[in-house]
């Protein structure tokens, strides 16, 4: 057997595996959103325990619509696994619409790919599982160095902070820069500021960041 052929077959196998893995990441991100969205709709129709897939263990906290994006369901806890499925709400922050800063992160090459087009004044609609709706308006778009910054969580006004990696077309993951979109609350249907309440022990926090699947 020719060494050249062996090397070629080996490289070919690696190539196929890598391309499949890359496609799998996108497929998973897409399929999970479809399933979670469907489960959300069924929840709204009154279905009890509507799970996106039978063994799902994540909790959706809100549904978010940005300009003419596809609607995205946000999951609780920005673990690597949750980020693979959906934009994820940082469990240490308040819920979007509560007074304080609500932090939602997603991958730059899947769910938040379109965040690149965010402009000041853009509207973001947020819907809670119980039907409450909040409207936010983008007030700031910036790029920050994650090594030198942290996100403050307190504040008097309901604020929404959307975070994804930057630059959008970078090849390797794990870069230090983040694309940060800040939006402020402008209206809510029958809005009264939700009371801050003690959070239940059922939501463990801080949520440790696990590695990417």
């Amino acid at each position, binding site marked *: 057997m020719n060494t*050249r*052929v062996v*090397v*070629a*077959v080996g*490289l*070919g196998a*690696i*190539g196929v595996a890598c*391309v499949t*893995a890359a496609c799998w990441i*996108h497929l*998973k991100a897409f399929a999970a959103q479809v*399933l979670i969205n*469907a489960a959300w709709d069924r*929840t709204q*129709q*009154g*279905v*009890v*325990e509507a799970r*996106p*897939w039978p*063994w*799902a263990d994540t909790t959706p906290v809100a549904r978010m619509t940005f300009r003419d994006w596809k609607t995205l369901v946000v999951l609780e806890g920005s673990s690597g696994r949750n*980020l693979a499925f959906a934009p*994820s709400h*940082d469990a*240490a922050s308040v819920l979007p*619409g509560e007074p304080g800063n609500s932090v939602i*992160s*997603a991958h730059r090459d*899947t769910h938040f790919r379109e965040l690149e087009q965010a402009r000041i004044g853009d509207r973001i609609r947020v819907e809670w*599982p119980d*039907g*409450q709706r909040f409207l936010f308006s983008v007030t700031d778009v910036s790029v920050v160095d*994650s090594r030198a*910054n*942290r*996100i403050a*969580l*307190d504040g*008097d006004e309901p604020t929404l902070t959307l975070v*994804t990696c930057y630059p959008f077309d*970078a*090849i*390797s*993951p*794990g870069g230090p820069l*983040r694309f940060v979109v800040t939006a402020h609350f402008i209206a809510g249907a029958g809005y*009264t500021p*939700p*009371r801050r*309440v*003690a*959070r239940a022990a*059922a939501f463990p*926090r*801080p949520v440790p960041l696990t590695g990417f*699947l």
Partner: protein
Amino acid sequence: MTTDPTPLRERVINWLAILAILLAGVVWPPVFGATPGEARAGTLYLCTMPCGAPTEALRQTTQIHAQVTGDVARVHVTQTFENPSDDWVEGLYAFPLSAGAAVDELEMLVGERRIRGEIKRKQEARAAYEQAKSEGRRASLVDQERPNMFTTSVANIAPHSSITVQIAYLDVIPFRDGRYSLSLPLSITPRYTPGGGRDEGAVAAAATPEHVEAAVQNAQIEIDLEPGFPLQQVNSVNHAVLMDMTGTGRRVNLRSPTVPADRDFELVWTPSVAPDTYASAFAERVGNDTYVLVSLMPPQMAAERTYKREVVFIIDTSGSMSGSSIEQARAALRLGVERLQPGDTFNIIRFSNDATSLFPTSQPAVGINRQSAMDFIDRLVADGGTEMRSALELAFSIPPTLDALRQIVFVTDGSVGNEAELVKLISARIGGARLFTVGIGGAPNAYFMREAAAAGRGSFTFIPQIDQVNERMSDVFRKLENPALVDLQLHWPAGAVATLASRLPSDVYAGDPLTVVAKLSSLPQGMITLNGRSGGGAWTRQLPLRIVNDRSGVAKLWARERIAALARQKNLGGDATEAENQIVTLALEHHLVSDYTSLVAVDDTPVRPVGTDARKEQVPVSAPRGTPWATTGFASTATPAPLLLLIGLAALGIALVLVLPARMRARA
């Protein structure tokens, strides 16, 4: 509730679900959707797993009022426990108070009635509380868990009603480094207690009841400041405040009543004329006894330094330091290395789960060593446990530089549970060295900082915010570079026999106040004399003793100091039973909460019907800002998909290039 309809779309979804089989996961808790009709807007429910009926969490709000007169603060902490559920609830709340707080008052407010708490031995108070609880009567109990951490238990909170508990304490506000500082701790840094059965001291043996969460707690704060002198400046370090002039003083309120309680409230004020040496003596008569509070601000004198120094920096790189704390610590350390003088030697020890030192022995502060130090500091990452003991042992085991005064600068947030053991270690092995503590972050463990510095014959400093690193580290260096007063002695007027609450320190550092509380058997006539050496020369100061009748509290402060001193002796290996007896006697006489005494308030009339059960809930306390519990970092928000795609395509391309010529060769 409807059943799950399965139209075509649904079947597609089910098919997709099968595709998603490889996705990881476990269960989907029906937090909402289960009872949408009952769930009110914006309310989060407790949901135990497996999820039963949702129950709303017990709510707790805190109001703090501090009356500051001169350098004594009377603080009232009002805690309201509101039960929004349909069950009878018992509330438990662990909260911090300033390390020197002398808690002497508890009142339970039931409707219009105020029920005063009584001081009892800890077990007796607990028994009275438990009995009232089982008989369905309202009761509240205040226990001291650690010197700066207390718990309130409230029994029989009726459904949809509340119970208010008011606690009062007395605190001395020292004049340190040219400013007065009133600190109201609002959050608890979760404590790390090392495993391995090393818990020895009574402090460490206490339970660790803190239940810490992100900043969800709110506090209202009001301070009436009557400093007794014209003010130059009043500042709130961590919170936005509103200030009103009230004659010579100020009334300070939080600008927003809903500021999260994730950092200590700190109010700092400075006199418009800073005295060169500030000294005062106040007395209070209680029966036949006279209690005296002597405050002394030592002179600011820059003496020529005649000795060599060996500075050993110890830096805490445990997980609790991550966030802005480690950045502050790094900045402080860099400044420390820069400030070293030629001729000094130095070393750096970092610790988390383990401890390592920069050099095996301390090295001269020259260019190349400074550069290695800077590189070492840049590489520090906060992660892991807080094994302070190994760091201290390493510091003590490093061979000392000959003919040099060793100064250990310990930079930490002090979030440890084995304080007593560590203080004991420092006290036993400090020898001729001095230990200085630098408390970092929004809520450092002030008790540990003070006790460790006292045991190490040094001083302590706090750096609450990154922009104060320069200023506060300068205070540290001033102290490191020269003690202001040495060989201090205190002489009472002739005929007076004094019992000092704690031992007179032998060295007093520049900027550090000296506070002495003493009990005298008679009312002395004459002057108090302080002697010492300063800058190589003799130093003497005489103070007249002022009797202030309305200045109640000196007796309580004496008792508090005395109790702290006895606890310290006990922790350092003194006679435990003897110390305990003395503490109990003092605490009962002066109505103080201590390690062995608690305040309990019990209502006479039963309210909870016999046969109904009460649930027990613990209200979480806020985590300090700047730690991973209260700010948040950035998630990793890039997938390796583009990289994988690039590698994959490159590999396929090369494979193709390798294969094609081979086939062509075969044809030929």
